[in-house]
């Protein structure tokens, strides 16, 4: 398809590389490059959406507050975007940076870098991704697409299109192929959450439930996989309903990252807990401290 000169320039112009978006999540030098697709996989309540908010804030905040100042598109397929929660995290990060300018104006400029799209079916997701192509060419600062979640239409598609798996997975495959083309042409990065649909029968062995169940085209696209899980809260039976701070500190989430991109196959584990100001990563020594307390 022919494109105008402006479109060509917008396409070739370098978009911000997001390799350093969160070095604590990824192995050494294994951060998401341009064209990378990161899948966050896990059961409910394991912190996937919290991580997405954390990455979103990192992208839209001004450089003075530790951000990257890039535009972000948030594709919301199961109506889980909590704007008020997101704004409270942005607020606390902005005030922590003690910026001299007016708070309202800083917040507005951060929010204006965010575009939100709601989709309610996989065919609408496909059409929206086509539409986003024009948005991508008109906004060269757009470097990240967040999808929450890519598995929202899995069961509805399974039932809608007959008996053969290929027909059932067709819509998501088309979305994945289109995403692949957008990644190649525009050099953006994609982060997507995928809900687990199987709980491990025995809590320790989890290999079966961690397998990706979406279509092949999506699985081929994924370059980094973050497996999220929640550690059991500590044995503070006596402190039930007591100290809130204590309770929060014991709710630790772990993320295990596996990359299959480039020549190096690497993996990396990290842990975090959720506070008022969003996600807080635990350092190695803090992890051991919490374990010792249990």
């Amino acid at each position, binding site marked *: *398809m022919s494109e105008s000169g402006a479109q060509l320039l917008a396409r070739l112009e370098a978009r911000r590389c997001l390799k350093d978006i969160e070095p604590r999540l990824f192995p050494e030098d294994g951060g998401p490059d341009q064209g990378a697709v990161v899948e966050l996989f896990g*059961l*409910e*309540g394991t912190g996937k*959406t919290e991580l997405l908010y954390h990455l979103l804030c990192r992208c*839209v905040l001004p450089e003075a507050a530790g951000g990257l100042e890039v535009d972000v*598109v948030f594709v919301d397929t*199961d*109506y*889980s975007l*909590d*704007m*008020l*929660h997101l*704004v409270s995290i942005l607020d606390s990060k902005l005030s922590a940076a003690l910026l001299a300018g007016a708070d309202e104006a800083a917040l*507005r400029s*951060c*929010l*204006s*870098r*965010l*575009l*939100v*799209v*709601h*989709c*309610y079916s996989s*065919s*609408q997701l*496909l*059409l*929206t991704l*086509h*539409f986003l192509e024009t*948005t991508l060419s008109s906004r060269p600062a757009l470097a990240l697409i967040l999808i929450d*979640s890519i598995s*929202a*239409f899995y*069961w*509805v598609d*399974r*039932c*809608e299109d007959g008996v053969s798996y290929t027909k059932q997975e067709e*819509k998501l495959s*088309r979305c994945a192929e*289109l995403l692949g083309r957008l990644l190649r042409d525009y050099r953006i990065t994609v982060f997507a959450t995928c*809900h*687990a*649909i*199987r*709980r491990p*029968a025995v*809590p320790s062995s989890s290999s079966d439930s961690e397998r990706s169940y979406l279509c092949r085209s999506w699985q081929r696209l994924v370059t980094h996989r973050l497996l999220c899980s929640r550690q059991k*809260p500590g044995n503070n039976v006596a402190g*039930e*309903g007591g100290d*809130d701070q204590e*309770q*929060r500190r014991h*709710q630790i989430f772990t993320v295990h990252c596996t990359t299959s991109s480039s020549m190096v196959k690497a993996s990396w584990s990290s842990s975090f807990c959720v506070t008022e100001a969003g996600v807080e990563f635990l350092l190695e020594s803090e992890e051991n401290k919490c374990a010792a307390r249990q």
Partner: protein
Amino acid sequence: MVVLREGMCPGLDEDLLRDLRAADIKTVEDLVSSDIEGLAQKCSVSYKALFAIRRVLLAQHTAFPVSGADLYEELLSSTAILSTGNPSLDKLLDSGLYTGEITELSGGPGSGKSQVCFGVAVHISYQLKQSVIYIDTTGGLAASRLLQMLQAETSNTEEQMEALQRIHVFRLFDVYALLGCLYSLRSGGLQQASVGGGSVKAVIVDSVSAVISPLLGGKQNEGMSLMIQVAGVLKTMAKDFNVAALVTNHVTRSGSGEVQPGLGVSWSHIPRTRILLERVEKAVAVSRPSLRSAKLIKSSRQPCHIKEEFDLQWWSRSEKGSSGKRKLDETDS
């Protein structure tokens, strides 16, 4: 999947439709994903015309991106927090039910889920003077119980009647009726129910698992698909009309023996906040059979696993300190 029909947009006439169908393009998605140049040659129509048709169809069916700032402004002015009427439950929910979200109440038989739903409905219709949609799938709703709860709040019969009129009840017993009811509410029913009273602020479905769990299990996936469709309609209704959705669920035992909410892992991602209700065993000895404990098992605002106890008999009063209101007679039938 939107099928291409003539007259959908200017330029899409019968001849063009026939040519497109011959080239295996039957839906809007096919047209948008295909190569326009090649297609224009095959259907012997100008590239410009086909490109314009594609652009119009895409604009008609896509979801438009909204700027974060505009979305935030909109939410600030439209999100509300509805108190449930019970101070302990409000503490657990971070001051009440949030509009635009689904809150789930799960518990075993006799744990008080329906009573909690009655309490919430009565509080919203009497104290907050807003309408409530109550969808009853178990047959457990009795207007006499609602009246009894209202009589504890006020002795003015006119006010009682007004409050009862603001609670709209739907009785359905299978999932297709539930879907039909939710779809009709979404496309105009909510506005109708808002006439003559406050606007609808809460939709209570008691219980959602009663109509869905008989369809789950086995090799058919239809049950899962229907469950996700119900969830989708509830969520879009909650978001678009700014209502709080409250659903109830049964419980099952997990592999390790502990009690967990039913309907499986795929449902667990749907509600934003989940509460587990249980009877308090020691209350049997203390002869307070209406004591219940609520535990928060999923929340994005509070630390999980905090517990609160409350008494079903005195809905709007907390554990400590009752105001001088009348206690309901236990012999009332």
